[in-house]
């Protein structure tokens, strides 16, 4: 099963939830996150390893990016979920992967995306009394010295 076959199986199994797709990535609707990942993990794709969770701030929206990986088929699939800025909530994957725990906490810390159902949604890298989410493009803080540009 190569990457095209995995994406094809997703399209067939979950009609209507895949907004966008390309060679090695798919974009989902928010509601479909849990069933799609459960299918990816336990289904024929056997993407048993959650390799990374991250996010990209697109100013009006925030993309949450998941990388899942299958040892059996030797493929890496990128899954994206696009969230509007006024509703940064997405279902947590902690019920499927233990790895999601810290990775989602990191995304919450740096981007302010809340993962619903996460058992311990705290900051992980920055101090607990910190305000703001530093990897947002609109983040500003006193004491940050910008690099002088020629």
């Amino acid at each position, binding site marked *: 099963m190569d990457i095209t076959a995995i994406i094809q199986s997703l399209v067939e199994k979950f009609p209507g939830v895949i907004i966008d797709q390309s060679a090695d990535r798919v974009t989902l609707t928010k509601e479909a996150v849990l069933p799609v990942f459960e299918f990816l993990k336990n289904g024929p794709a056997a993407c048993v390893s959650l390799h990374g969770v991250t996010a990209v701030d697109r100013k009006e929206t925030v993309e949450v990016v998941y990388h899942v990986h299958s040892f059996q088929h030797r493929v890496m699939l990128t899954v994206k979920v696009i969230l509007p800025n006024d509703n940064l909530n997405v279902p947590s994957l902690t019920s499927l992967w233990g790895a999601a725990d810290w990775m989602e906490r990191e995304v919450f810390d740096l981007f302010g995306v809340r993962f619903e159902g996460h058992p311990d949604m705290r900051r992980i890298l*920055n*101090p607990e009394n910190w305000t703001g989410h*530093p990897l947002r493009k609109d983040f500003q803080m006193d004491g*940050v*010295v*910008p690099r*002088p540009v020629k």
Partner: protein
Amino acid sequence: MAVNAKILGAEVIDKVPGGSFFLAKTEDLFNWAKSSSLWPLTFGLACCAIEMMVTGGSHYDIDRFGSGVFRASPRQCDVMIISGTICIKMKDSIKRLYDQMPEPKYVIAMGNCAISGGIFYHDSYSVVKGAEAVGIPVDVFVAGCPPRPENLLHGIIKLQEKINSTKAKKA
């Protein structure tokens, strides 16, 4: 080093007839004792900690300068080698470690990060701009990213010179 020779040198002992005791000024004696056994704190922050380990290791052998006894507790230390980047989350711990050290205490800022924030000075939201910004007085700055082990040894020798040149306070 000069004090060392003066106290232990044969000419001093020879001048004292019949006994094996030394003559020296107390401030020289105390300075000699302080500078010859600078026990550092086992406290690695970042990259520079690896070079600090190497300095303590077999090739460079920090023990030749009396600083080989790395202690895990700040209460047993004389010198704190701040080896790495100081971050906002860590700064209170560092200050507390410094406060826990008994007098006389000395600080070596090892590497550019501990001096000024170094490579992380610009654009960083979580790096403190050097050890002195935390309120820790630094005796010797050792520049480099990371400094070579020879640099750190040089810094320790400079610190010894500094200790040896201090005058005792009048009571």
